[in-house]
């Protein structure tokens, strides 16, 4: 009897780790085969390293003002020029990567985690709970993401943290729906039925039998959302309800000085915009690569 109960557990161990290996391998394969995928991975690595080593990399203090060299053109000393109060734009962009990545990672982390919990519960329990939650998600999705984020931020007072919370809330409905769908199809598997038959507790079934099936869609959606989150943070800061001055944020740099001095000093608008675009592009392409490698069926989700 002991051997019989031990076997299913042992059998589950093998496919689970095999799935992990094949996923890493599939991603590796895709990155090697698609030049765009490899480029995106390199771009992301560059941005992450920039954010980590911002203090070492930036030639000047991003907050140091030197009015005597205000609106200086790009030069060897100041590769991206200086802004209207003589701050080095290059250093500010390097430090701005921290805000973008930080907001992106935390917002997507929180939004994905919350969406995952709701999706798991709704997909697993179905019935009334599912119905109520899905209608609430419909209601949130009926309001355009940016408008909802704007409203939330203005309620909470404009700040980087509140922009992050708003983005996280905006992410939840779509994520919960994708997880819910994946859970519902995972529930059809025989081994879930078997686990229920031998009397496994619900939390255990969810965590060890269903969760492994939904990690791929979650990671894919999260990587695609990262680019969007950075874009929304930049937009909120641009509209004046995100990160507040003097903190260097790409969106804020574009709106505050970038637009005002656009004709005299176009570099003030060009470089922050370029930084945003490259970061978003990197995550978008990486998300595409991940999706193609792991789950091409998710194509219709955006």
């Amino acid at each position: 009897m002991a051997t019989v109960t031990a076997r299913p557990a042992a059998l589950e161990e093998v496919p689970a780790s095999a799935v992990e290996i094949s996923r890493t391998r599939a991603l590796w394969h895709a990155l090697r085969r698609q030049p765009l995928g490899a480029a995106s991975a390199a771009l992301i690595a560059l941005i992450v390293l920039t954010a980590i080593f911002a203090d070492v990399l930036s030639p000047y203090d991003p907050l140091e003002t030197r009015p005597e060299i205000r609106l200086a053109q790009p030069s060897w000393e100041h590769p991206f020029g200086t802004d209207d109060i003589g701050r080095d734009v290059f250093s500010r962009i390097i430090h701005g990567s921290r805000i973008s990545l930080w907001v992106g990672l935390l917002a997507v982390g929180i939004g994905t985690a919350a969406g995952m919990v709701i999706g798991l519960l709704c997909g697993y329990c179905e019935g009334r709970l599912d119905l109520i939650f899905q209608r609430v998600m419909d209601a949130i999705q009926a309001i355009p993401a940016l408008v909802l984020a704007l409203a939330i931020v203005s309620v909470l007072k404009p700040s980087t943290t509140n922009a992050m919370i708003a983005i996280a809330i905006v992410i939840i409905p779509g994520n919960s729906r994708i997880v819910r769908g994946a859970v519902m199809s995972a529930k059809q598997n025989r081994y879930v039925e078997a686990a229920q038959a031998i009397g496994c507790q619900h939390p255990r079934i969810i965590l060890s039998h269903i969760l492994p099936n939904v990690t791929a869609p979650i990671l894919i959606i999260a990587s695609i959302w990262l680019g969007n989150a950075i874009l929304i943070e930049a937009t909120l800061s641009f509209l004046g309800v995100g990160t507040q001055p003097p903190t260097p944020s790409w969106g804020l740099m574009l709106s505050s000085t970038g637009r005002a001095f656009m004709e005299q000093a176009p570099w003030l608008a060009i470089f922050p915009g370029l930084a945003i675009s490259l970061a978003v592009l990197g995550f978008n392409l990486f998300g595409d690569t991940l999706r193609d490698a792991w789950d091409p069926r998710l194509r219709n989700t955006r």
Partner: protein
Amino acid sequence: MYKYVLRRAVLAVPVLLLSSVIVFGLMRVMPGDALVALMGESGNIGERELAKLRKDLRLDLPYHEQYALWVWQMVTLRPGDSLFTGEPITTSLKKAIPVTLELAALAMVLGIVIAVPIGVLSATRQDTPSDYVGRVVAVSGLSLPDFWLGTLVITFAAIWFHWIPPIGYVSLWDAPWRNLQQFLLPAAVLGYRLAAATMRMTRSTVLEVLREDYVRTAWAKGLEGRIVVYKHALKNALIPVVTIIGGQLGVLLAGTVVVETIFALPGMGRLTVEAILFRDYPVVQTNVMLVAGTLVTLNLLVDLSYAWLDPRIRYR
């Protein structure tokens, strides 16, 4: 069919009600009573006037009664007045809606006209240089922030061509040419993003459809390439494309917020952002609900259009 439409319409009601609860709730937890902001602007006002104003604006009622009153106002299409300008909301909406509608429609037309042919081209010439160019253009459309693109377009039009869009909005009926000059650039900026998503979807679904048996049959019959691609393949490839366009409607409406701000167009987006910044909650509530209602309706229309595109789909 009618039954389906009716059922979908009935299902939309609780969703919109829930949205209205979310919006109403959000507006009520805003820090800084709107009244305080209002008072701050007009200088010192006594307690008595303040109380009277509260009563006029119905802020003295308990929340659930305020909510019920608001829903009633929305249903009867009398959303009240703006807290700041004192103007009836319906009046400002009448001015703002045509602006946003024109912008969104123009952006949509531009987006689709650009996206579908390029998507098809990209698919029929898969893995050629023109495919790569198409794909890079599409992905960059999803990555370039519209506020950046808008700023650059305005500035470089001014620097290089010494051209500045005419200031001061005029309606399409009064001065069509001047109006188009004002709208073409913002619509192009907005349409680019829509085009990007549509292009990607067109490419991948056309690729899929081109591998189907009936397309091979069409080729085997010796039909001309254009007819095979546009008449046989494209129509069946359009369903996911329509879904994507439908899904982009929200993005489009949100995009008008940014684009209207940059290009100084007095539309719904700018009205809403200003109302949010000034905590003019009657305006915010009304506008956001209007947008939510529009989106829910448009999504229903998108679903219904499937039956027209694919006669195999029947609604019950």
